[in-house]
């Protein structure tokens, strides 16, 4: 009979992970490292000038754009189109999405219609919009509005469907009016879903904005990119693309800001 101590060993840790943390600066660092690599590659000739422009040249183009005032001339109309079109589209989308969420008849009538419109590449309808709303701003607003409208509708009515029914029953049991139940329970309850839908639909709006401007606009980031592309002016092309990325990041930051304002109760 042995009196050996049973072997001790620590329990292996196997938890952790699956919990996204907020780490600042890493995103920016990745970005700068990539740009740095591109710069080194183009400077040394490892990447030929026809493959990629030098990031420093692109930056120079950008500075020139800024100094000549051309930047604002292109950016302002683009931002206006985005703002007007996306505002119309999301407001209409949220209203219809809530109606679909609340009224069975609206749902039965319009959900198939929305499903039918959703997969149409909206850009294909631009000629139609030009006839309906004119070659100028009208058709661009309409295109962006329609492009943001459908995803917003779908996101909104699924968000309304997911509002906790016991909260609604609670409202009814305390004799709240229908209006109060919608405004104070359904709408705030659906807000997380609506805002995450907004992120997607605003990205779509930027894509449509550029497409619309490429098909017919004197000024605008899309027109600028198209012109650069047709001249194979890679520096200007990349400067234009960079502006779009910044626009995208800006819009996403804006939604993030709204989220922290409206959804502070969550975290």
């Amino acid at each position, binding site marked *: 009979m042995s009196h050996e101590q049973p072997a001790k060993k620590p329990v292996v840790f196997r938890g952790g992970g699956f919990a996204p943390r907020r780490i600042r600066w890493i995103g920016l660092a990745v970005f700068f490292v990539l740009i740095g690599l591109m710069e080194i590659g183009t400077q040394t000739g490892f990447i030929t000038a026809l493959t990629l422009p030098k990031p420093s040249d692109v930056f120079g183009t950008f500075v020139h754009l800024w100094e000549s005032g051309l930047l604002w001339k292109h950016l302002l109309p683009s931002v206006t189109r985005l703002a007007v079109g996306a505002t119309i589209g999301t407001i209409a989308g949220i209203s219809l999405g809530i109606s679909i969420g609340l009224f069975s008849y609206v749902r039965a009538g319009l959900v198939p219609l929305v499903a039918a419109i959703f997969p149409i590449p909206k850009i294909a309808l631009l000629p139609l919009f030009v006839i309906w709303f004119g070659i100028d701003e009208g058709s661009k607003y309409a295109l962006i509005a329609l492009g943001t409208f459908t995803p917003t509708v779908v996101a909104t009515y699924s968000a309304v469907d997911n509002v906790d029914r016991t909260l609604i029953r609670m409202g009814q*049991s305390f004799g709240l009016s229908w209006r109060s139940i919608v405004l104070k329970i359904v709408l705030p309850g659906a807000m997380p879903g609506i805002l995450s839908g907004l992120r997607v639909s605003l990205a779509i709006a930027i894509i449509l904005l550029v497409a619309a401007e490429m098909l017919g606009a004197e000024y605008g980031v899309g027109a600028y990119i198209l012109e650069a592309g047709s001249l194979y002016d890679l520096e200007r092309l990349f400067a234009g693309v960079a502006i779009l990325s910044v626009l995208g990041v800006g819009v996403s930051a804006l939604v993030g800001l709204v989220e922290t304002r409206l959804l502070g109760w969550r975290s």
Partner: protein
Amino acid sequence: MDLQLEKICHSYGSLEVLSDVSLDIPAGKIVCVVGPSGCGKSTLLRIIGGLERPDSGRVVQIGEPPADSINPLTFVFQDFALLPWRSVRGNISLVLEDHGIRGERCDAIIDDVLARTKLSEFKKALPRQLSGGMKQRVAIARALAVNPAVMLMDEPLSALDSQTRELLMDDLISLWSRNPFTAVYVTHNLQEAVRLGHEIVVLSRRPGVIREIVAIDMPLSERTMGDAGLEAKQKYLWNLMREEAVAADKELISVP
């Protein structure tokens, strides 16, 4: 105001849930409803509170609710049903705003009910910052704010640990002793039933019919944990329910 249930029957599709339930709910008394899982207790409560329409039978009010009662039939839900985006104060003002009570009067009511449920310090807290017991106290404060004639409580303490449950039971008893309210209290915890109930209604397994109504005459304030008389009642109730519970348990398994 008394309530009277007259021959309530209810089914969900082909599933008969309640069958011929008649019951009196006298003013100022707590009526506990116990029964095996799935026997229709929550359904019965929703019918009493007008959230569901029975297939046949009706619930009648006898006499008028007190004039100062803002919402005569008021629920306290098992899962609290607090709006996570509103503070404790906001959750209570929610149910007052709609009845035209704002400003000073609203503040006075809120301060009063929060004091009665010992929540005064947590006025500005959000639900996620509160423990389960405190959330349920907020829900009780919200119910008290509308001065109900009848409180309809659906397993209000089931989501809480047993220590918190004891504390809240004491709170409910002291609330009732100071100002007797009428309540229908659904629970599957027999200990809660014998501590809080003036009458205990035992429902059979589905379809729920009333098997027996057990009255407990001992005043609420004299009922203590481990009291021999109450233990006997609890044992008696358990014997009543045992076969039903066993049968109900088997039934649930055999559901396709």
